[in-house]
């Protein structure tokens, strides 16, 4: 029997965190302002009151320190869930993430697991200042030893955060912050797909649209608009950026013969490049058109007043769809 509840993505994350903390007292939350304040996005709201200051830590203000001590805590059996306040503030922790967190299981030849989750609210559409709207997922996806995932719906948020915490591996958990507020149905009784699985979220026959996080919403909008013009789009939600689950993507590419990959991040040497290259390679004989990419431009995320032109929207996706169809 399914237990359906409607809630925002943010609340779903909160509920998932609460569940994980209730299930295991080894789960700790760490970060800046996540305790008394409940996080600047209120994702951890109420959790310190419920679980205490030992389980929800308002740490000193230093990201390398947070991730580095989370590693030490994981070594002694905790499962720390770190919140980075905004996408652009993960870089001070980059060394600990890439040279330590990602590599320690390997360095220990498997004798040690590092179950650390790093939650990063990311992406644009919120009109914020510099460093607050970026999409840094490619840096992590390129780093062996990390898993990188990004939910796009409240249901996935609820289940994927629990799966990320349950995973023995370090998981970079990218939260599309523009999706925090919209609501959706969460099935509290029925587990979502496994953490690494991609998923077809809309069936279609002419063009395959691939994306992750907030972009999935844009792709679905584009699919609706395309339908009105007589084009049937299939939409694949990546969910996991490392590893990428190519099965559903390739099946779709082979059936439609046309693929558009979209993301908010700058395109150069990105996750979008990887997916385009791999689809072009593995679906070579099926493609009627080159795999086309729609990305943020290769510039720093611009001042908020320009985010509308910077961020790919449904129209930019449709422009690529049209180009794909024109081949």
């Amino acid at each position: 029997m399914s237990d359906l509840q409607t809630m925002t993505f943010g609340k779903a994350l909160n509920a998932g965190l609460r569940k994980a903390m209730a299930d295991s007292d080894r789960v700790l939350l760490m970060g800046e302002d996540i305790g008394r304040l409940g996080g600047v996005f209120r994702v951890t709201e109420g959790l310190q009151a419920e679980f205490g200051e030992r389980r929800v830590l308002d740490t000193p203000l230093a990201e390398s320190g947070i991730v580095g001590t989370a590693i030490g805590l994981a070594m002694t059996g905790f499962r720390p869930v770190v919140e980075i306040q905004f996408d652009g503030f993960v870089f001070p922790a980059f060394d600990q993430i890439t040279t330590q967190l990602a590599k320690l299981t390997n360095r220990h030849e498997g004798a040690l697991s590092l179950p650390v989750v790093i939650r990063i609210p990311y992406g644009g559409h919120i009109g914020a200042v510099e460093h607050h709207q970026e999409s840094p997922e490619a840096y992590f996806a390129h780093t062996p030893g990390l898993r990188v995932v990004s939910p796009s719906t409240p249901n996935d948020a609820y289940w994927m955060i629990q799966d990320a915490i349950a995973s023995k591996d370090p998981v970079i958990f990218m939260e599309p912050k523009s999706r925090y507020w919209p609501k959706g149905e969460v099935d509290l009784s029925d587990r979502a797909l496994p953490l690494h699985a991609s998923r077809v979220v809309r069936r279609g026959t002419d063009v395959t649209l691939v994306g992750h996080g907030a972009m999935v919403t844009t792709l679905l909008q584009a699919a609706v608009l395309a339908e009105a013009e007589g084009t049937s789009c299939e939409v694949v939600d990546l969910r996991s950026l490392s590893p990428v689950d190519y099965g559903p993507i390739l099946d779709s590419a082979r059936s439609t013969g046309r693929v558009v990959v979209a993301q908010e991040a700058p395109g150069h040497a990105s996750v979008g490049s990887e997916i385009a290259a791999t689809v072009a390679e593995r679906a070579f004989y099926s493609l009627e058109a080159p795999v086309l990419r729609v990305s943020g431009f290769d510039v720093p995320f611009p001042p908020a007043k320009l985010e509308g032109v910077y961020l790919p929207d449904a129209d930019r996706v449709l422009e690529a769809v049209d180009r794909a169809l024109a081949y």
Partner: protein
Amino acid sequence: MTSPGASPQEPEIDRTVRILSADGAISPSASAERYLPLVEALGDAELEQFYRDMAVIRAFDRQATLLQRQGQLALWPPSQGQEAAQVGSARAARAQDHLFPSYREHVVATIRGVDPVDIIKLMRGTSHGGWDPTDPKNGNTHLYTLVLGSQTLHATGYAMGIAFDGRHATGDADSDEAVIVYYGDGASSQGDVHEAMVFAASYRTPQVFFLQNNHWAISVPVATQSRVPLAGRAPGYGMEAIRVDGNDVLASYAVTRLALDEARAGHGPRAIEAVTYRMGAHTTSDDPTKYRTSDEEQSWIARDPIARMRAYLEARGASSAFFADVEAEAADVAADARTRTTQLEAPSRDSMFANVYSEPHPLLDEQRQWLADYEASFEEGGA
């Protein structure tokens, strides 16, 4: 365990330099001795200017907060409560000095010549910068830096450059240069601040580290960053450190003046911890009632830096005309900021590509062209 409550240690009366007491009387702490001559040298005009700075920019700051609430800005980090630390330190800097702010130094920037509406640009989302630090009219005020602590290293590098070029320690305080860098109690935990101090000490830079301990890093009390006064860190690098009452504009001025002049004279870097209070929210997105008591807020309202200076000036005999004049100027500046804010234009589409590199970049040229064509296609479609 994490945060021992919301009420961090009081400034220790004797070791913290204070000249003006909370009620505006001159009552120097023991440690203030050496700074008194600097304060005594200040004339009416300068003292009144200090007050004017604080009052006018507070009015602007309130206006900006209001503008944000009315949807005109994305965000505003109020400087209210920190005016004395900022006026004292900025007025202590000499014309040739370079200032590296964090993101709450509206008072500092304005005093140095930055148009307050240029600060608003950043918060309105029309620019990531807002002014040109290389334009003399901006008084060598560098851009705001949002990644906490990063600017401390830029300041140290800049000060190394001054030293390498022999632009300090010539003995002429009117041309010898120095650098002052601003950061907060929260930022002090960042590794970059440590590395900046290591480099500054190693290269004996002409530089002052100016920490505004406003007791809070968003919702986290300073006690989480340190159980002992933050000023105590600098001596570990061989750097002299001074703790000052940051709500006392006279002490803030004198302490910074001496530290900058010593640094410019070649005596090496100095560190100042100005103990003050963020009277408002962290930013307009923040709700301080979630993490601090109104008792605490009240206790700091009682130590308001502007009221304190006003009491002092009144006792010295400043005229009510003077205060009326300041009030009028404050209202004008605020009104002008409002008008010009609503006139700020969105940046051009091309500006997104134009300044990423200083030299030609074929990839970006292509993307710029693509976007122009793409947007033009709608105009045609629409026509």
